């Protein structure tokens, strides 16, 4: 279990600044949510933290070590990410076995077959699915494979970029329960991007509300049902979500 600290994260695409001094702390083993409307920079925060985007300023440290200072291999074994769209995050021509064995080969890990089988069991897929290709799997099964790929390197931190938004509701619940179970079993620290407050309410202890590249307020989970936010935008967002849930 490793804590995360993000301090003054700024990031620009050319002349447009998309992140303005984003700072937050995540305790070891916590699940921290990032919510906000589309384009508010939630996913960009994750891409910066994982160094998929390199041109940012500020400081991101995991377990007290700055991610920029970590050697590539250490960083990969520290941070992994689960992407939003399970239809785009698996290589269409790689079998599940290839998807899971690649990271093991890159990092020279032993007992590859054992680890792959264990990862499949961890995410609740039958081991003989290793022979399958993505187009032979359903959306939920694909997302399970993507989660297996993230956890096969035994990371401490898993970044979840809207892991359920491309799935239908019943499958969403399965994946969320799987993620919760993995967190208790393996002691992951999660940062979860979502635009669905009920998902955040289910998963996260605390969450940050983002608007146009800024964190406007950091709230505990308990603030959702009572709409205890002080910032007007956060109040509006939570109020809209509550109204939507009542309507449904």
């Amino acid at each position: 279990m490793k804590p995360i600290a993000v301090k003054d994260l700024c990031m620009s695409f050319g002349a447009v600044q998309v992140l303005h001094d984003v700072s937050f702390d995540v305790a070891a083993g916590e699940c921290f949510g990032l919510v906000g409307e589309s384009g508010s920079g939630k996913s960009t925060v994750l891409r910066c933290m994982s160094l998929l985007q390199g041109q940012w300023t500020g400081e991101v440290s995991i377990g007290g070590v700055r991610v920029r200072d970590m050697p590539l291999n250490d960083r990969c074994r520290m941070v992994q990410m689960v992407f939003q769209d399970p239809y785009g995050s698996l290589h269409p021509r790689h079998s599940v076995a290839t998807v899971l064995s690649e990271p093991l080969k890159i990092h020279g890990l032993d007992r590859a077959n054992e680890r792959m089988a264990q990862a499949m069991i961890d995410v609740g897929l039958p081991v003989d699915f290793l022979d399958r290709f993505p187009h032979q799997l359903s959306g939920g099964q694909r997302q399970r494979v993507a989660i297996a790929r993230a956890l096969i390197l035994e990371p401490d931190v898993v970044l979840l970029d809207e892991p359920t938004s491309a799935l239908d509701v019943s499958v969403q619940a399965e994946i969320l329960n799987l993620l919760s179970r993995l967190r208790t079993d393996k002691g992951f620290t999660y940062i979860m991007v979502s635009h669905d407050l009920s998902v955040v309410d289910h998963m996260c202890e605390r969450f940050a509300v983002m608007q146009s590249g800024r964190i406007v307020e950091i709230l505990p989970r308990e603030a959702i049902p009572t709409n205890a936010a002080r910032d007007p935008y956060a109040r509006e967002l939570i109020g809209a979500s509550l109204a939507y849930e009542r309507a449904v």
Partner: protein
Amino acid sequence: MTLATDTTRPRRMPQSLIAARNIVGFLLRSPTSAFGLFVLAVLILTAIFAPLLATHDPFLQDLQNPLQPPGDGHLFGTDELGRDIYSRLVYGSRISLMIIFLVSIVVGPIGLFVGAISGYFGGWWDTILMRVTDIFLSFPSLILSLAFVAALGPSLNNAIIAISLTAWPPIARLARAETLTFRSADYISAARLQGASSARIIWKSIVPMCLPSVLIRLTLNMATVILTAAGLGFLGLGAKPPTPEWGAMIATGRRYMIDHWWLVTFPGLAILSVSLAFNLLGDGLRDALDPKQMNKR
């Protein structure tokens, strides 16, 4: 859900064999690509069994009966030196196949490599490699091959080198365009997060995605390659005279064309049918390898 079986290893071979069988099956279902496949099969078999199929020695001159019309012991007649045109065509299939094969194995990897690198890295790499590609593309391929052959000296090997040098740019362009559509895909990001090197990402993730369209393009290119080789042969810059190369046969037959039509007609028909076959096969492959068809496999 079934429980774990004892096979945890990926079964690779059956998967690719099944895919190959399905592609051939798909090609055979449409008459045009089936025709292409058929002509290609005939060409390959002819090349392999040329000594059995040829009725005469392709180099044997018979000055007693030059320019014989078809029939009467010579299926397609004889040329100005009394050589059997049918046997020369049969042996010429070996040369055509060799040209196609060598050009393809040179051009495919070069084009794929240049395109994938320039698409994946972008920036300076992209600018430099694409400007080089532009320079090669800005000449008509036959003219550029002519220049190369003129510089290297006329021979079949130099013709192959020259054709290869002019045939890779379209493939590089194609591979680059394909790469650009994949490079920001989540599975590439995931590979980067796993610590994969750029070389590994290009080789394992990008090349397999570009391969179908490059294969299609190569197949369609083979028709052009045959025509360029024939053109070079016709201009006397390809195969040397006694070699039974189809273009060179037309070139020498041209002088007798008015009175002795069979000298140019049969090599011409051979070139026509083979290049048509490759075009049809390429079209068929485009349908067979279409990603939208993937789910049916």
